[in-house]
């Protein structure tokens, strides 16, 4: 009898989801847009840094270095000033982000003493752009030094080479896509069912269910199962899109990804249920959801590396379930980590799944 009732409850849910004018669109289109647009837009690699050059030397060497910088593809020459004071004006007018100044007698001194100085001045209003720009610039100059056989005085004999493991071309998209998949699951499993339950409260239909012999747990299950199914479906689509558009295939096993996704979704539906227990309108649920979503997102390492956060913020991320799944997802996708490598992540996600569901049960007990 239970199974039969559950089947009918599920049938009703799917009917309602299908008939909803808004929900099917929001469930499918928005996540897809996120996957297709976000990785391109949320790109921290710096291109098109506007460069202003002040060449006081007019030598072959300065010319060669200029060409090397411009051919790197990161810089765009927007200003060529005879004097630093004029170059600074182009920064003030936002036409340039970085000034590179060759001192007078640059080539001569370099040839004579094997060393010289260049001035790099960066506009630090956009800190990332300024910082990354000047470090790109320095590494190009260092490369140039190496080619020409010059070394800076304090680095004689030392050469630094960096190799990017697992993502050799530092492709930002390969890094973003697995993280966005986690985000998709968070929204679908955690927040859409919560809003759905609250809407039944708002419309009063939950009253009718409450006076029927259907146990509350069965009713909740009928709310969650459809979104778990949709979540797995979306994950599959996302994996497909990652392959088709970004050529990204998980190095590790898909099975591990789905296993993580299953526990993760159960956890977040728990959080969603807890929210639905304390909200009586969709508006309240929406705002509570936003609160968690934004904090979790910004502290998940999805957009900014956790290692560059201050220590207290790093400690907070330990309490963020999204963090663990984003990390695990990237490790599986890019590094091919085995389950045993990310066991710790898995247990943390399990822990949050239990915690959130206990909160949900407590929330519903209290409101009864």
């Amino acid at each position, binding site marked *: *009898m239970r199974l*039969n*009732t559950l089947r*009918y*409850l599920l049938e*009703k849910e799917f*009917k*309602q989801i299908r*008939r*909803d004018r808004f929900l099917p669109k929001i469930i499918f289109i928005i996540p897809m847009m996120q996957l297709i647009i976000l990785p391109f837009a949320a790109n921290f690699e710096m291109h098109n840094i506007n460069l202003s050059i002040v060449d006081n030397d007019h030598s072959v060497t300065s010319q060669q270095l200029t060409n090397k910088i411009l051919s790197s593809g990161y810089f765009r020459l927007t200003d060529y000033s005879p004097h630093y004071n004029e170059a600074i004006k182009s920064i003030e007018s936002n036409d340039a982000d970085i000034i590179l100044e060759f001192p007078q007698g640059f080539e001569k001194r370099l040839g004579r003493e094997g060393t010289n100085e260049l001035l790099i001045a960066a506009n630090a209003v956009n800190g990332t752009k300024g910082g990354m720009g000047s470090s790109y610039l320095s590494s190009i100059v260092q490369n140039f030094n190496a080619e020409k056989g010059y070394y800076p005085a304090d680095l004689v004999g030392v050469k630094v080479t960096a190799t990017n493991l697992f993502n050799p071309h530092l492709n930002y998209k390969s890094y973003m896509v697995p993280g966005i998949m986690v985000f998709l699951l968070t929204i679908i499993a955690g927040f859409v069912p919560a809003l759905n339950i609250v809407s039944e409260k708002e*419309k*009063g*239909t939950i*009253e*009718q*269910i*409450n*006076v*029927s*012999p*259907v146990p509350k747990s069965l009713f909740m299950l009928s709310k969650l199962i459809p979104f778990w199914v949709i979540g797995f479906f979306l994950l599959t689509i996302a994996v497909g899109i990652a392959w088709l558009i970004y050529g990204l295939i998980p190095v590790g096993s898909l099975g591990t990804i789905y296993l993580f996704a299953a526990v993760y979704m159960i956890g977040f539906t728990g959080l969603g249920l807890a929210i639905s227990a304390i909200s009586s309108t969709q508006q309240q649920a929406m705002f509570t959801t936003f609160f968690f979503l934004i904090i979790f997102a910004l502290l998940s390492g999805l957009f900014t590396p956790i290692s560059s956060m201050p220590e207290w913020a790093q400690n907070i991320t330990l309490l963020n379930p999204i963090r663990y799944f984003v990390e695990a997802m990237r490790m599986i996708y890019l590094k091919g980590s085995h389950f045993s490598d990310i066991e710790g992540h898995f247990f943390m996600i399990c822990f949050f799944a239990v915690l959130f569901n206990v909160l949900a049960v407590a929330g519903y007990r209290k409101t009864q």
Partner: protein
Amino acid sequence: MNNVSIQHISKKYASIEALQDISLEIQPGELFGLIGPDGAGKTTLFRILTTLLLADSGSASVCGLDVVKDLREIRKRVGYMPGRFSLYQDLTVEENLQFFATVFNTTIEKNYDLVRDIYVQIEPFKHRRAGKLSGGMKQKLALSCALIHRPDVLFLDEPTTGVDPVSRVEFWDMLDRLKKQGITILVSTPYMDEASRCDRIALMRAGKCLSVDTPENIRRSFTRSLWAVQGAQMYPLLNVLRNYPEIYSCYAFGDAHHLTFRHQNVSDNEINALQEYLKTNGYTGVELRKIEPSVEDCFMAL
């Protein structure tokens, strides 16, 4: 036993006493009315009886089952129609009925005879979404859904609020037919004129039960003679009447004022004196006639 028994039920919301020591006995097969204005506590009482809400004190039983201990069993045996339309607006008429039949582990076919009279009226629209039905049809669908599992006791919370007068009469006719099937019906309404359709009524105000009896007995308990007054300029007339020392009570009642005198038996002389009084105050052609008290008059007198 389809009876409902309420003993000393009280319920408080923050500082508001929604129900204060309510005790009622409703007999099997009775059509029992809870009559009272908004805020009387009717819905709260229904929610306690349908196991949706816990009372602060007191006990209640439905079909001999305790509303706290045996809530699962009670839920199988009662039908509840909340005051607000609360069926799935995005499901069709038929799907809603089917859904509630399944939820109660039964089928439409099994209990069709019970809802047939009501359902045939909305059957032509069975493929229409519930949200697109008119008010009267929504109410019929809600009643069908509350009945589809053949409940022993039916709770109807203000079923006729916001329904046109013709449909209201129809609705009470339907309740009469259901009563004949042996279903105990508890119905609440703010409309005093519907009270006479009930077997017994409880008059409620501000969480208190003022009087419980048959509508007939309640009317009979009104011992003063009641007069209806009609004239021009009704509102100033009300104030003038209230200033007359012999008047016990006077209130606006539809298109007339109802008034009672300080003593029980009113002689013609006293009526003439009142007419004179009105004339001296500039009210001529005021019509006074003796009328039978309605339930509402009794309610006002309580």
